[in-house]
């Protein structure tokens, strides 16, 4: 079952050719899926070996998401670069994600001067999929995750222009199209964009068949150890 195992906060720094967002390799289990989400204003160049999941330019702030399957020859750092922009992002380590179909859906929403930044609506066909919500706002803001979401990380950078980034996640728990999500909270009011990713669970398990060369197993067992019921015990319901 898809789980968020770890997350890494990047380091943002100026370089000779622009800015670099550097994630230290968390060295997860080989085969775990690393997902990076970046909020930016200009084009981002990912390192080798990362596939693009989504590039969303619809929002005021743009988002890119990438994925990479952890391998034993991965470098110590993953560096994402841009010509010049206040990049922000997070690296998520997931276990039992679907490596062939990582992303089921994504959506973007803008907000301006809002103390309750929206979370874009989610479309998911399986309750076990995971929703990842990201908010990027101008200025230093205290972002609180929406009800039901667990905040993964939130921080403020100020290399070029002060910006706040927040990322939260939850199990979908419901299925359907464009399911409304609760709003986050921003103190003070924030202006920026929000992204929602729906990460797919692993390929559904195929249970092995019960095979016995000599059929006739005892099967399931059980015992009722409940104490006798007293007279007059009220009916439940």
């Amino acid at each position, binding site marked *: 079952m898809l789980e968020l195992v770890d997350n890494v906060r990047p380091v943002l720094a100026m370089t000779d050719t622009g800015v670099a967002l550097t994630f230290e390799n968390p060295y997860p289990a080989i085969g775990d899926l690393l997902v990076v989400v970046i909020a930016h204003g200009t084009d981002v160049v990912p390192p080798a070996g990362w596939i693009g999941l989504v590039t969303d330019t619809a929002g005021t702030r743009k988002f890119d998401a990438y994925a990479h399957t952890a391998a034993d020859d991965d470098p110590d750092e993953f560096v994402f670069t841009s010509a010049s922009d206040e990049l922000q992002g997070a690296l998520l380590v997931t276990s039992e994600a679907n490596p062939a179909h990582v992303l089921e859906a994504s959506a973007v929403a803008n907000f301006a001067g809002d103390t309750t930044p929206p979370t874009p609506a989610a479309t998911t066909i399986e309750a076990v999929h995971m929703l990842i919500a990201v908010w990027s706002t101008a200025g230093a803001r205290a972002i609180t995750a929406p009800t039901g979401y667990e905040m993964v990380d939130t921080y403020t950078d100020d290399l070029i222009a002060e910006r706040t980034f927040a990322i939260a996640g939850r199990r979908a*728990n419901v299925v359907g199209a464009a399911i409304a999500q609760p709003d986050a909270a921003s103190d003070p009011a924030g202006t920026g964009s929000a992204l929602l990713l729906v990460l797919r669970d692993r390929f*559904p398990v195929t249970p*092995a068949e019960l095979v016995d060369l*000599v*059929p006739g197993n005892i099967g399931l067992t*059980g*015992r*009722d150890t409940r104490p006798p019921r007293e007279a007059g015990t009220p009916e439940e*319901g």
Partner: protein
Amino acid sequence: MAHVLLLHLDEPEGVLASDALGNLDDLRVEPGIVAPGYVTAWTGRGRSFDGATQALLAPDLSELGTLLTRDVTIQALISLNLDGVAAPMTAIARGVNDGSVSERYAYGLELAPHPTEAGLVLVRWFWSDYAGAIQTAPAGVFRSPGNGKEFMLTATRRWESSDRVVVRYYVNDQRIAELVTAAGDISGGTTGTTTIGARKDTGAWERWFKGTLDELVVADFEMSLEEVRHVWRRLTEYQPGAVETFGALAPVGLNWAELPYMSKLVKVVGQAHGTVVAEAEELRAMWLPPVATLESARAWEAGLKLSTKPRDSLDQRRARLIAYGSRLQGFSIPAVLQAVAPLLAATPDQLEVLEYDNIVTDGFDTFDTETKWLTGDVGAWAAAGGTLDLVHEFTDDIRWSVVGNTCHARIGIDTGETGRFYASAKIAAYDIAEDAEVGIVVENRVTGQRLLFGIRNEMGLLVLGWRKAGGAWNPVGGAFAGPVWLRVHNIVSENGIVPANPTWLEWSTSGPNSGFDTELVSGIAMVQWVGFGANSTAAPLAGDTTASFDDFLAYAPDGLRSFAWYIYRDPALPGIPDVNQAVALIKRMKPGHTFGGFTQAKVLPAGDTRDGLTSRGPLGRW
């Protein structure tokens, strides 16, 4: 922890299926349904349902019945036939939903073909709420192994509150989903009817199961992942292995499996042996807290005298046991938070551990008057540009002899029983009216003793010196200008004749670490407060008096401050914390040499930490 229903479904043809535990009456048909077929299944016999007309039902038989409106586990050995199936299929439903409370669905389990992905199967709980509406839990998904291929399916439901129910699904020994639903109102009555192979809703049979039910058990607890895996291992490893082991005792060349008597004997003896091995292995593998069953966890809790809530989940109990055990490796804040959080109706990240140090510093980027500094009624204190600025206006009356000890900014300091302390600061700038003085102040407010060490305007001339309350000004050093670095302490002692309450006064105009001159004076006993203050021997002030202080440090090497810690819960959080249970658990988990407590306020009135109350110390102000 009990099983309430056990259907082997291995009765010979013509014999009604029965509950091995005696809680359900024999399963039979009624108008509208026909009996499922008798077939060979993995355990020997099972019942085959055609997905259109075949089902069974029975009322409760024993007084204990099969009603479960909270935690439930349904485990079944089943095979599916998905040919032509488009609608959900009911494996079992407790209740026939005829409009009466007693027949509302207390629980039910159904499977359904995935709406868009061929070959995938959804499995999900359903039940009725208090209004009688059917609530369907979110579904787990697995890929069908193929028509007629038998596997083990387990579904668990854990009721946590009226708006949170956790459901888990397993195929064989793998968990395929853990999901949460807010439908926590679960209805059902004690005289309800159980149906197998279909569900009855307002008089109509629907959602017919198509496949074979080999065995089915219902339990009143949430089976853990380890327990599910252990059932699987018993069925697929221990029992078959024991059968083979015993079968190997047959004479060489004899194929016991082909001899009816021998094969039955080998199977019975072998599986019995395998069951014993499985039980022993379960005891061995599942007694430690991280994998304990609910039964074992309760035994651990009783033995360790850990306080718990009755509705604590197995996950919470395990986490608490682990946290309790990990304390033996040293004081682990995350472990304490993990253990205490459920009792405080919070998650660990919603709680904060307040810890303290015997050293307090302040660079005055801000002036924290909520949890750190107290200020007096006279004078204005504010942090600006990295200094703490005091402003007394012309005509203010700041005489200690008149206004008492209110001309100050102070913090509490716990010097312990030795009374040793150290305080230092920089007076960065100053403009002092004639006959006024500013500086570091140390005091004991119980005895009324106070000492100021700083700068005084003596008839227009600025001089360094000190004064005790009620005493004269004592100049030290000579002429000076610019910022002054001051130290007051009684940590260093000197052999020979010393004054009462020996206190070292040190001053430098060179910098914070060099050029200090010293003077040993008779200070005050048991300093309790350090900070900054001002005094005047004339009233009103002859002019504005201002001072800027910086680089404050206070140190109490023998204080108890660093041994105190508190778990803080924001009172604005929803829910009701069980404070008594939490405090009892904290006391059991904390290192013995510390004081640990719980608080919903970061600032409390003062008292004494050593008597077990939170009224004094790090949170305290007089």
